[in-house]
């Protein structure tokens, strides 16, 4: 009888021990990844603005200066602002969101190859290097959005409950950018000329996406094609939520089955990117 109890107790204890062990290793794994991510992001920041007098300010100044140039060109030369209320912030918001997409994908694309030294010597989860680039871009986006919000308020837009809609929009933007970055990063390990292709694609995308111009300038029958591009949907939704409900969004101009296309594309790209990256990442160390 006593023996049985002892036996039971022993089993109980060993089960407990085992679970504790499991739990603690799981904890360490996530804790470790977090600390790696943190160090990589902070290294990124420190290195990027080293030796520049204005330092971090550049990540605010860059989109603002780009905005200033485009604003002058398109308001005074091409007069694209006609019929668009708050064209200034309209343009600025588009540029800021586009900049985030560009930064995440461009930095993410080269991240695996650039960190090749690390990947060949240590078995950290490969996705960390891509994610770390996207977090730097995300922090930039955060600061930029604060500036945009200030401009929006200065422009006389009243804060409203629709501002909250920006949250799911930003999540969609982040997921899409990161997914594209994953695909490009894995691709870049094998084909180095992805860089040049992507440079052109980004340039083309900038004009294919309604950033400079209002969608009202696009004939109605073509809008459905513009909205295939998830970034068009994202940027228009963001404008709708933050600036004016006159912004043309897919949800109220297209039939639902068309309006849902960009979201489906985002989901499909995300799933594909995860599978592809996971498959390719096994061989990163030997292929870089």
């Amino acid at each position: 009888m006593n023996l049985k109890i002892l036996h039971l107790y022993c089993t109980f204890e060993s089960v407990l021990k085992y679970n504790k062990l499991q739990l603690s290793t799981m904890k360490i794994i996530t804790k470790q990844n977090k600390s790696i991510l943190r160090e990589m992001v902070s290294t990124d920041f420190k290195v990027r603005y080293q030796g520049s007098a204005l330092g971090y300010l550049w990540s605010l100044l860059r989109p603002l200066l780009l905005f200033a140039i485009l604003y002058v060109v398109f308001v005074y030369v091409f007069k694209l602002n006609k019929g668009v209320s708050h064209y200034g912030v309209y343009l600025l918001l588009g540029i800021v969101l586009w900049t985030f997409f560009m930064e995440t994908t461009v930095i993410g694309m080269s991240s695996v190859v650039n960190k090749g030294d690390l990947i060949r010597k240590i078995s950290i989860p490969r996705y960390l290097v891509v994610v770390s680039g996207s977090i730097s871009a995300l922090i930039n986006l955060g600061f930029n959005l604060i500036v945009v919000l200030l401009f929006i308020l200065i422009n006389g837009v009243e804060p409203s409950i629709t501002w909250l809609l920006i949250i799911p929009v930003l999540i969609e933007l982040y997921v899409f950018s990161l997914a594209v970055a994953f695909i490009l990063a894995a691709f870049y390990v094998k084909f180095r000329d992805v860089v040049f292709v992507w440079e052109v694609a980004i340039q083309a995308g900038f004009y294919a996406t309604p950033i400079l111009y209002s969608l009202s300038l696009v004939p109605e029958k073509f809008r459905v094609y513009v909205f295939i591009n998830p970034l068009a949907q994202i940027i228009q939704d963001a404008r709708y939520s933050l600036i004016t409900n006159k912004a043309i969004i897919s949800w109220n101009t297209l039939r639902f089955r068309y309006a849902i296309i960009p979201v489906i594309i985002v989901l499909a790209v995300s799933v594909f990117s995860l599978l592809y990256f996971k498959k390719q990442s096994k061989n990163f160390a030997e292929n870089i």
Partner: protein
Amino acid sequence: MNDKVAISVADLHKEFILPQHKITTIKQAFVNIGKKNEKVKQNVLNGVDFQINKGDFFGIVGKNGSGKSTLLKILAGVYSPTSGQVERSGELTPFIELGVGFNPELSGRDNVFLNASLLGFSRAETTLLYDDIVEFSELKDSMDKKLKNYSSGMQVRLAFAIAVKARNDILIFDEVLAVGDEAFQSKCLDIFEKYKAAKQTVVLVTHDMETVRRFCNRAMLLDNGKILEIGDPRKVSRKYSKLNDIEIDKMIKNDSDSSDKARYLEARIKDKNNNTCHRFSSGDKIKIEVSWKGLDSSQLESVGVNIFKRTGEHITGFNSRYSLKKGWKEKEEISLDINLNITDGRYYLLIEAFREPGKVIDAIYEGPDFDIDSSEDKGLKWSGLVDLPHKWSDAN
């Protein structure tokens, strides 16, 4: 997997596909469609099976290109195997290189945190260890300098100071001893000593047989992606030396003998009654007889007798050149009397014949062995490994 096992490797294969003409641009990929791309498969590991137990200090040796670094990278999870299984219990920290992730643009301080995070430390843990690391690296005044302004020696010191803090179930080292100066190497060896004492599971890839014999309790010799020998580090290191000798022989016709068995030398161990014997107690007097029938005596300069412990430690060694007078070679046999003032254990002799100092003509690498077992004895008047000649004096 039984719970004494730290790493278990079963039928591991790894092949690298080396395209003769590597496609790195999309254009080339298009141009080459339809053409059969000549790929050369290189089998780096061909079916490797072994286990490393918890608490093992496991050495992996082999010539360049034998696959040992590839194996290590697979153990570390950097490469994935082509086929076969690698199971491990517990977490692992690899040191394929010291100072992984070091960024030359960051200060020494920032690099400590960066590198430590990659070794599995959280920021809080690193903060706690930081002062220790700085002190150990002896770089207190340079921590705010950028790493690119460090000398390479300083960088290694910093990297090493962080590395020694790493605590994990399994530690893996790849040729870490190859970098750094002598002072650094001896620091390394001290750390290994500590690991050994603490029963830390360590996997070590090295070319240095001395290190293998000194630290490893098990070792493995890889050649062409296969295990040539596994187990006793002494055997493994002998086999490795032999492999190298064959290699050297191929390159230069060496006149010293490098075959496995001694050609001329013979040795016997006798007790005080002149009977061959392999079992003694501490303090026993023994006689070692060495003969060299058939060897041209004019070639012979001296004979060396070494006592090794089975675990690899070189206990002592004597050379005849310091004591024997002219004419010692005439009988083609000499003998050596020893008081076995050494502790219990298993020992073996390594006997060499020299043509001139440092040049071996013939050798018995694994000479006669003997056990010392004093269990039935009256008790020793000393402790430790050996009894050195000594003398006490009183204050007068």
